[in-house]
């Protein structure tokens, strides 16, 4: 056990962790930030994506000690300062880009990293980028739509609904 300190969502936080503790478990168990989810044990599902020093990382693929001293952003740190949803989060709600909500934190963190790199992605680029995030509920249709909408693109013609 050793004490670890990192800056998470703008606050300097410390807790004890064993050498084998994964960053995902440290965030959830050590720091009590349960917004980051764990959906698999093979670094496939992407529910645990956070930003480490600005990079999107599957937090189950990194030891907590490797992140000591880093600046971390989790889903809890993604809303606007006044607590309202960010543009990307709002697009997920507007376009029904989530159902059970379990993959959602990882989806939002991955999509935010994409938009930071590529502010106007194509549908194919969004799908390719989100390939490491599994969603079992939505069929991805509305997630892709939400990310495109958050980038300021018109999605009114995507798919067709009745009426």
């Amino acid at each position, binding site marked *: 056990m050793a004490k670890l300190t990192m800056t998470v969502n703008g606050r300097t936080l410390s807790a004890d962790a064993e050498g084998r503790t994964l960053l995902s478990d440290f965030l959830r168990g050590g720091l009590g930030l349960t917004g980051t989810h764990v959906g698999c044990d093979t670094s496939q599902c992407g529910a645990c994506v956070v930003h480490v020093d600005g990079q999107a990382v599957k937090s189950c693929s990194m030891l907590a000690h490797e992140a000591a001293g880093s600046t971390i952003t989790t889903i809890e740190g993604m809303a606007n300062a006044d607590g309202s949803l960010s543009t990307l989060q709002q697009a997920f*709600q507007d376009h*029904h880009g989530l*159902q*059970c909500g*379990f993959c959602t934190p990882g989806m939002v963190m991955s999509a935010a990293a994409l938009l930071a790199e590529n502010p106007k992605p194509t549908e194919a680029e969004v799908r390719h980028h989100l390939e490491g995030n*599994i969603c079992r509920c939505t*069929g*991805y249709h509305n997630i892709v739509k939400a990310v495109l909408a958050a980038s300021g693109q018109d999605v009114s013609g995507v798919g067709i609904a009745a009426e």
Partner: protein
Amino acid sequence: MPKDGGIGASTKRREDLRFLTGNGRYTDDINLRGQAFAHFLRSDVAHGRINRIDTAAAAAMPGVLRVFTAADFAAVGGLPCGWCVTDKHGQPMREPKHPVLADGKVRHVGDPIAVVVAETYAQARDAAEAIVVDITELPAAINMKAALAPDAPLVHDDLPSNLCYDWGFVEDNKAAVDEAFRTAAHVTTLELVNNRLVANPMEPRVAVGDYDPWNDQHTLYTTSQNPHVIRLLMGAFVLGIPEHKLRVVAPDVGGGFGTKIFHYAEEAFCTFAAKQLKRPVKWTCSRSEAFMTDAHGRDHVTKIELALDKDNNFTAIRTETYANMGAYLSTFAPSVPTWLHGTLMAGNYRTPLIYVNVKAVFTNTVPVDAYRGAGRPEATFQLERVVDKAARELGVDPIELRRQNFIKPDQFPYQTPVAVVYDTGNYHATLDKLLEISDIAGFEARRADSARRGKLRGFGVAHYIEACGIAPSNLVGQLGARAGLYESATVRVNATGSISVYTGSHAHGQGHETSFAQVVAEMIGIDAKQIDIVHGDTANTPMGMGTYGSRSLAVGGSAIVKATNKIINKAKKIAAHLLEASEDDIELKDGKFSVAGTDKSVDWAGVTLAAYVPHNYPLENLEPGLEETAFYDPSNFTYPSGGYGCEVEVDPETGKVEIVAFSAADDFGNIVNPMIVEGQVQGGLAQGIGQALLESCVYDDNGQLLSGSYMDYAMPRADDLPMFKVDHSCNTPCTHNPLGVKGCGEAGAIGSPPAVVNAVIDALHRAGHTHVTHIDMPLTPARVWAAINGN
């Protein structure tokens, strides 16, 4: 335009705010003071005799509180099965005991042998490695047909064979069906596999048990679709805890798809161990553990025959199916290949004679139970594949063969030969709509374009029917269900007019907190923001049966309508008193009670306040307060239906299939929130396309699970799927529930697999590969390439 927040509006989901900000409260987010952690040691062989379990070294490891084995559960019941199927000879199915921890034998990879409870997860895991288990490995029964051979290894030594039941439906029709086949002008036969799947909700299962000795009160927090069902099953049959001493809470649940309906050993263990250790006990499933413990889905091997007369009218259907039960009977497993499958074999067609035979088989694999659609995808797949195959054999258009044999719009209500009566539907309308939104007219040009790029383009259709809104309790009781299938609601109106609705259904992605509030807001005419939907806790919701089988709105929503109507009736009495008018003259509109033909009125809050501050109130003939409970038991199933169209491109060089377009035209009856309905269809399509192209749960001949993680089990990902065209404008409202709704949760997963396979076969046939009559799912590049090349 419907008013936002009312019925018919695509109101944004209120639950999204917590999910989008990391403030959801899933079971693994619950950490109780003093909690200990459980880790299960599981069998790594499919079948074996347990000679000895030595836990001494493990018990002495750091942090270990106790190690449990089957011996600790000697006085505890087995996990119960909730449905008893009667076989074709009138005998009950064979029902072996399902112990909480393996007792004497292990029967599948993943069967729990021992549990370590320790101060930390890591300590529990470390200690489990120190448990010494001496097992004599036995030959395993894996393949269903081989498992029925006389010399097959027995999964359960106390049963005469691995046959659970041999079911015939409708047994009285069998002779007539056989005769129809003897006189048929054409018979099409198809043998197929409905591949075994793993539901894979993204949230793995979790259980936290807690015990308060001062009140003798047990609490279980669990990832369940139906907390009341778990309370009843676990309390009454496993641990012997009466309901008033057992609270089951299913908070935010991260997807279910059927696999979180069932009562699992880990729930009983954590509840039991919490009392033994006087500490909360928490278990969190890893994904690898989920693959070998969550009930699997599908796994049917079927031969279907379709008889046609000389005019291509369907005259009879005969099927023989082997259905895998796995090593033990999961909670509702026996009902899936029987009553949820055989009763749907008429599909959308007028076939007058049908006989379905199902042999359910025990094997040394994980139990198999309901997965999104549950029996109905299996029925739809074989039917829609055999119809397509028949059309190709007869040289007629598969779409026109369907249209010719559809039940006609003026034939509803329609009595099928497999017991059920479809109340409403218009299959011609959904098929026409499907062809319109699929742009079938432009197909030839798109095909020519694909051909120029060396790709084979095909278009396939499937038309499905499902039975949802389960179910009339008196009917399912006759069919072997050991539970009622009503739903419940309590509507509690507060003094200032806000409302808490307590529902027995459960949301794990379906958005009930939004859509159920829309129903109540519409009925009373107040802002939906004044209404909260509460679910998931047996301590505050009335006894309800939970969410599965696309039943929540049709059954749970109907209970809410019933309770709200009771509220409105009482509120009108109060309003009549306040307005000094006759109750018959009171009208409720937009949250205001008025006396008809006058300008006298009192608003909603005025009435609710009077109910709780009854100073001016008819106390002599009306109780104060405004709270009502209703239970709704449906008189029939609901019958959603629709047509699905899949357009594929096949690369003949590699066999890779790409879905280039997918369209769905569904009839769900009335719709409360179109946005949510479309989302349900899109998600179902992804799961059905996953089954058709990617997913397969595979055991080797020794019973080792080869697809035990996301490295091996191919989940559909964002770049595997297209944008979907989803239409729900061809609605024929359900006639027997107050909302006229049918249910939309499973349709996508039911209708899409045959549409995909039909499209691939179409692509191959158009390219001249007419020797390919069927490819078993999943249609991997290797399988498609082999089919094209005649291997």
